[in-house]
């Protein structure tokens, strides 16, 4: 059974100059699809091909010749001298060649495929073939595992005869039409990504997953990004724990974030005790419980701001870069204007009219729109402009791709990493601004860390004793929450910058 259901795959091997090429020609003449795997290996390391950079990174620049191409002779000396190096080279090139063959088999739509490879027996490609044909020029090399042996020691005509005979003995009827859409079972991906909507989509999803998995692995190595994610996870756990604790362990009368107070503790504000690890505020409320109750609205602000920024900034950047002209002029002027006014001040003016009608989601949305249409859009626009100058966009245009296809296939995927960085920065601003609005007195009934800080500072004006925990605990929570997003954005920025990623690869 071949690796490609619906196709019959012949693996063709034999020593150097044994006549594999001639056999492949005959089979191609019979309607089979011929693939020269050895040539694919060579092509994978040409300058600009996908194998070029990884091989350079693995072995160093000395394998280059004067014109910047990889010198196969030098590379050969390296890998022949060191089995480890050979293994490394193989691990780089095999997946690339395999992907190319996959694609050729699927696009070729020939029922029978011939893969010619000199070292087929040593290669994982062997498993992908239904049968193996070995071409010999007289000797008995490699014939041990052959299904069919073609003896090329005689004349060319004799060889052709043998090939034709072997062809008629293939188990599949040759004249049978090729299925229009070969069903390819997607391998279940590690993330549980089960895709059922057709093989093309599955293939694309798999490719995307492979791409993102590499990114995730790099991200996981970034200490700052890890710390940021850990802080966010901690906050999320606390947010989930609050209603559970309030329903079961904590008494509502004592731990309710708004109305609760503990008669057993006096006077308020009080320092930390076992029952109240962060102490009680000036009204006797448990500070930890208040801190936890403020997490969900803050997450709402963060999520709304993040999504609004992401969508708006990416859309404006892609549209102005693609259409340029008047579209770009309009967007650019609006963005520049929005850039100049701090979103926080605009929201303050809005809030002065709407009083407490601006809830967490609305707040995040407004902030996201102001930032996403402003500074983030400016950054995305200039990045998208540089992307539009890439050769592949021109190639796509020549091939007749429309606006939507170029934007969705070429611009958006490359804009996304930077957009996520901008999104995280917007979240930092939104969280701090939300805290300040509550501090400033425009908070609605929902809980907010900024309001807690304000209450603590206000208490100071009538009382010499400072409720330190009431001021410091929410300050720390808010700053940590915002800093977590900043750290993630930092890590993503390092990831999305190919120059930096490159240098990291080189030094490792």
């Amino acid at each position, binding site marked *: 059974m071949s690796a490609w259901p619906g196709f019959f795959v012949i693996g063709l091997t034999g020593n150097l100059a044994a006549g594999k090429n001639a056999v492949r020609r005959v089979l191609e003449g019979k309607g089979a699809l011929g693939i020269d795997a050895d040539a694919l290996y060579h092509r994978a390391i040409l300058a600009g091909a996908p194998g070029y950079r990884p091989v350079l990174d693995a072995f160093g620049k000395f394998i280059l010749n004067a014109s910047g191409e990889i010198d196969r002779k030098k590379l050969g000396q390296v890998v022949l001298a060191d089995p480890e190096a050979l293994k490394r080279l193989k691990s780089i090139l095999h997946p690339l060649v395999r992907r190319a063959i996959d694609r050729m088999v699927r696009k070729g739509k020939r029922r029978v495929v011939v893969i010619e490879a000199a070292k087929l027996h040593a290669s994982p490609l062997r498993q992908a073939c239904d049968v193996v044909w070995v071409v010999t020029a007289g000797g008995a090399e490699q014939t041990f595992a052959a299904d069919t042996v073609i003896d090329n020691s005689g004349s060319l005509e004799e060889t052709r005869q043998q090939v034709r005979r072997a062809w008629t003995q293939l188990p599949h009827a040759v004249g049978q039409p090729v299925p229009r859409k070969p069903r390819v079972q997607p391998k279940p991906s590690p993330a549980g990504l089960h895709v059922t909507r057709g093989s093309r989509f599955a293939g694309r999803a798999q490719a995307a997953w492979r791409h993102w998995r590499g990114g995730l692995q790099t991200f996981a190595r970034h200490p700052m990004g890890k710390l940021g994610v850990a802080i966010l996870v901690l906050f999320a756990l606390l947010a989930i724990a609050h209603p559970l604790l309030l329903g079961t362990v904590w008494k509502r009368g004592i731990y309710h974030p708004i109305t609760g107070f503990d008669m057993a503790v006096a006077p308020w504000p009080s320092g930390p005790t076992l029952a109240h690890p962060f102490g009680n505020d000036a009204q006797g409320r448990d500070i930890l419980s208040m801190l936890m109750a403020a997490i969900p609205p803050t997450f709402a602000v963060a999520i709304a701001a993040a999504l609004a920024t992401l969508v708006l900034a990416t859309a404006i950047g892609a549209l102005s870069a693609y259409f340029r002209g008047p579209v770009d002029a309009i967007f650019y002027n609006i963005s520049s204007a929005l850039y100049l006014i701090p979103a926080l001040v605009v929201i303050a003016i809005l809030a002065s009219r709407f009083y407490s009608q601006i809830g967490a989601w609305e707040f995040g949305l407004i902030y996201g729109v102001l930032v996403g249409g402003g500074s983030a859009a400016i950054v995305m626009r200039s990045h998208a402009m540089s992307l539009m100058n890439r050769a592949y966009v021109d190639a796509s245009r020549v091939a007749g791709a429309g606006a939507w296809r170029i934007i969705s296939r070429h611009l958006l995927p490359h804009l996304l990493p930077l957009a996520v960085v901008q999104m995280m*920065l917007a979240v930092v*601003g939104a969280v701090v601004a939300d805290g300040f609005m509550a501090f400033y007195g425009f908070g609605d009934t929902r809980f907010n860390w900024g309001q807690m800080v304000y209450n603590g500072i206000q208490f100071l004006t009538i009382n010499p004793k400072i409720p330190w925990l009431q001021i410091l605990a929410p300050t720390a929570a808010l700053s940590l929450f915002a800093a977590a997003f900043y750290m993630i954005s930092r890590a993503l920025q390092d990831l999305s910058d190919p120059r930096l990623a490159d*240098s990291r690869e080189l030094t490792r």
Partner: protein
Amino acid sequence: MIAFLIRKIFSSLLTLFVLTTIVFFVVQVLMPGDFVSQFLGMPVQEKERLRQELGLDLPIWDQYLRWMGGLLTGQSHSFFGTFSVMDTVASALPPTLLVFVVGGGIAILLGYWLGKNTGWRSPRWLSEGTALFVIGLYAFFPPALAFLLQYFLGRQLEWLPANSEAHWARFQRDFPTLNQVDIMSEMVIVLAAVVLAVWGLTAVLYRWRRMRLPASITLSLVLISWLASLYARGIGAPALRVLYIASIPILAFMLLTVGELTIITRTSLAETVHEEYITTARAKGIPEAAVRDRHAARNALLPVISRAIVSLPYLIAGLAVVEYSLQWRGLGSAVFGSTLRQDVPLALGYLLFIGVLAMGARLLLEVLYFYLDPRLRSGQQSQRMRL
């Protein structure tokens, strides 16, 4: 360079026009009710009369044109009283500018220095630790930072003035003939002039003598000539007092800003470490500090400036918050104060001035970027040659 400046200024004016229009319509169209509707106890006739007096009964276009006209001629009026928006705003600008220029300047220098020293082959714990510390500063809740500074440095240690209002009163008593706002604007203008002069001096020295002044000498030259010129103009003592009173706002704004700048410098410096010109410089036997300062840090400067342009709105919002929290009488506390009173024309006037401030800072950074990037400069030159 001149063409670049003219183009930039032109597009800035256009942006400013768009900004005023957006601000006006967002506030006027989206908002239910108007200024008058907040007086609940007022009889209807009285309300109508007040609306007519303030021009609120006119169609929105008419209001817009009147407002723009008022802005251009400097005669827009607040809803409260008859004082002109322009005069009020103009008196709030110098305090903000002083904090922005001095605090921002220190933050840039300190951030650049910190980023340079921790980003360049320093031990991992130092580099990561500094990064975490400055991120903490960047994300620190500004009102709480302001409060903590005020409490510890002002009230507990009594090093710096905790309550600026009380100190302004004493300032008026000590210098009855002087206006603090005028002094502040003079300080900013003199500082700008001094920086330009010193920069010109270093350029001349380099051009004709191939001499580079160390950064420490340049900086002390700026500082000394700033103070000397202030004394020469006869406002040395009051200017020092103003700096003393402004120290907490300046410190708070500097701390909020320095984190971002440190991180950017650190990252862009790390990007240059693997460049080939760095290896070349090392191979030539140039001392490590010189490699860092001359070869790496100069190239790292461009991304620092471009990122600073992007994060400018965040920094200015931070400035406004710091001002409001410390009750420093600048644009920031004024815009929040007028918002609380629902005085929309005044709030918009302040907002517009904040926009102008941001625009000025952006323009400055863009010119700096243009000046520092040889690619842009040479592009301009080759164009001229082709013509």
